[in-house]
């Protein structure tokens, strides 16, 4: 009985050790996954910031182009409505 009890205690201890090891492995896996997800989230934040800045610069360029085009249109229309300037 004592041997059986010792054997059962050893087996339970081994089972507990295996369970603890599996638990630590699971924790390690979860921490790795969470770390990767956080890195992914950081990348997404940086990507959003850079994309926003690039889109803002692009929008600024397009605005400046629109203003230049409007100025050119006004100049050309004034020149066409007053052709005597070019017919002297």
């Amino acid at each position, binding site marked *: 009985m004592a041997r059986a009890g010792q054997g059962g205690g050893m087996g339970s201890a081994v089972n507990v050790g295996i369970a603890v090891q599996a638990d630590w492995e699971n924790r390690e896996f979860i921490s790795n996954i969470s770390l990767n997800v956080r890195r992914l989230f950081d990348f997404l934040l940086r990507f959003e910031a850079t994309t926003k800045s690039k889109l803002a610069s692009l929008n600024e360029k397009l605005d400046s182009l629109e203003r*230049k085009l409007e100025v*050119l249109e006004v100049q050309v229309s004034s020149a066409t409505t007053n052709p005597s300037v070019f017919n002297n």
Partner: protein
Amino acid sequence: MDAGSAGDGEAGRQEGTPPSGAPTGPAAPFGRSSSSSGLGAKGGAAPQSFDGALRELKDLQSQLHQAADCCEKAFLATEEKRLILDSTKSYICNAVVAVIDHLGTVSSKLEHQLEDKTEIMQTEQKISFLKQRLLTCEQYAISLQLLAVRADAGAVQYHRRYLSQSTERNNQENVAKSSRDDPEEPLKLNSTVAPGATRTLKPYDAESTIGREHAVAGADGGNPASTARSFSFRAEDVHVAAGGHHKKKKGSHGSNIMSFLKRSKRHA
């Protein structure tokens, strides 16, 4: 519901390795198809667009939700929980890798689309070219206007303080004289002279006005100013007329002498 069956609509996504020994375990519905297609698109003939990559990433969200539900149901239903747990772990690893791959593809495509905006540079160059052309036209028009202003002698006006008293007196005399003179001929003579300017008549002017002077002489009434002004060509006229008359007289005088000598010879 299997995640693999949920991803049947998307072709090329069944490349994930299904967990071994899991009859109801989730098969990875995504492989690295997006990155492989993206890499192939860089050198391929049909490049995948940014919209396509973004659509794949959005579809991945629903597939991941369905796979999580499947894993949970399988873990609760089966007796071999260890096996399901291992398969779920491998599935999560593959899912994270696939999501990162899709995100990289989407970001790289967006980056390329933002960097390859050559149309803006071309439009800027076209606008600068048009502005240059318009500026050239304006400069040309301004130069033409300047030439017209310089050629217009009537537009030149001097301020009174910059005119000497003699010039003003001459101007007043010219004005008074022009009002007193004959309304036709003096106007013709003075019309081309700017007010306040002294005109020096040249020989071709004298020749062109000789005939007129004779016609005007009677109507001029002995105006000293007009005689002084037309003195030079009048003297030439007189000189020419006198010269011609003198030649005629000389010729007639010579013919009289010759006739007298002939008569004296005959009489002798």
